[in-house]
């Protein structure tokens, strides 16, 4: 629908519109609008010569530059940083609780947890003996590279072997912001439905590992696994997939194997 005059424009190429801050429709319609000549303010346009500059600037450059520095910091200090991304409630914190409990005495690990509000997740991980810090993002729907940079060398010590970054539960926004991590892990619980990888393809495309979580619930729901795997292959054809349940322990050893083999040596 056209923002300016409310007309329906079927099959219109969205990307051709829209002038902002104007009450006058200025974009081209297939039907005819007649505008009075004085609506167009030609006298203003002719006052100064029009200049064009070509820029080719990446809009995320600032975040990407900081992420790049984070990446170097991780590399120089041999820290494996893992960005955990999923929708809310898919089991990120449960998996980290279990991981901290099982590997906490073997691997020097810390966790940064992003949520808009509360320190509930951090308290759960702390209860299992984990060193953890909550980042409350307030109105922001994702973590950005600066939020991680602020913790490097202070909360995240130089001798850390493994840094988990539990991103804000959201299948859309976190995928656009590189944090400098070496590995991205996407979680998808069986109760969310098989088609999430194609509904939210950016996040699943960028994952190095996809965990199918809460597999213990599979007997109680309609979950077509081959369909889910087909969708994953469409957006990320060679991604490693592990089925996992923190309740039954399915896939846990394979997850630990992934972590151990990814550690920087």
């Amino acid at each position, binding site marked *: 629908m056209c923002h300016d005059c409310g007309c329906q424009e079927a099959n219109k190429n*969205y*990307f051709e*519109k*829209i*002038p*902002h*801050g*104007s009450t006058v429709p*200025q974009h081209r319609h297939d039907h005819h609008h007649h505008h009075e000549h004085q609506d167009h303010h030609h006298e*203003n*346009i002719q*006052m*100064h*010569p*029009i*200049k*064009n*500059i*070509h*820029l*080719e*600037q*990446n*809009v*995320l*450059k*600032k975040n990407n530059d900081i992420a790049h520095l984070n990446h170097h910091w991780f590399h120089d200090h041999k820290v494996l940083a893992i960005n955990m991304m999923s929708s809310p409630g898919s089991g990120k914190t449960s998996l980290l609780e279990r991981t901290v409990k099982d590997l906490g005495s073997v691997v020097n690990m810390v966790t940064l947890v992003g949520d808009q509000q509360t320190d509930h997740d951090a308290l759960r991980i702390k209860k299992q003996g984990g060193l953890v810090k909550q980042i409350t993002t307030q109105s*922001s*729907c*994702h973590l*950005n590279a600066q939020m991680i940079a602020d913790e490097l060398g202070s909360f995240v010590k130089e001798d850390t072997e493994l840094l988990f970054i539990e991103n804000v539960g959201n299948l*859309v*926004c976190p*995928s*656009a*912001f590189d944090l400098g991590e070496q590995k991205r892990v996407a979680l998808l619980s069986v109760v969310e439905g098989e088609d999430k990888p*194609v509904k939210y*393809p*950016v*996040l699943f*495309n960028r994952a190095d590992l996809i965990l199918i979580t809460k597999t213990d619930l599979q007997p109680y729901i309609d979950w077509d696994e081959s369909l889910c795997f087909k969708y994953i*292959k*469409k*957006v*990320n*054809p*060679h991604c490693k997939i592990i089925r996992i349940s923190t309740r039954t322990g399915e896939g846990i050893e394979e997850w630990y194997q992934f972590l151990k083999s990814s550690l920087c040596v």
Partner: protein
Amino acid sequence: MHELSIAEQIVSQSLASIQSYEVHRVLSIEINVGILSGVVPECLDFVFPEACRGTLLEGTQLVIHGIPLTLKCSSCGKISQQEQIQICCSHCLSSRVEIIDGKDIIIAKMEFD
């Protein structure tokens, strides 16, 4: 709605880019949005005027060009484009492809007087 953060970046980078010019009005900013950038054009379009408020960019037209995926196939060596996020070569259907475009959000051009 991370598009507001993106819109704010567009505003600050655009203003920085025209600092050395004498500018009366910025008529338009053209940006290229890759379909694998994670940015929803409709949302960006919606929040852009808000990000411009109180700056020289108030009233500036944001022109968004959708950039499809460009893939280079390791199996047949050809370049193909996908309008949807489907990581496979449209010539030989191989999934052994490298993404060479469609991931970024780029400020391409500004027009001002």
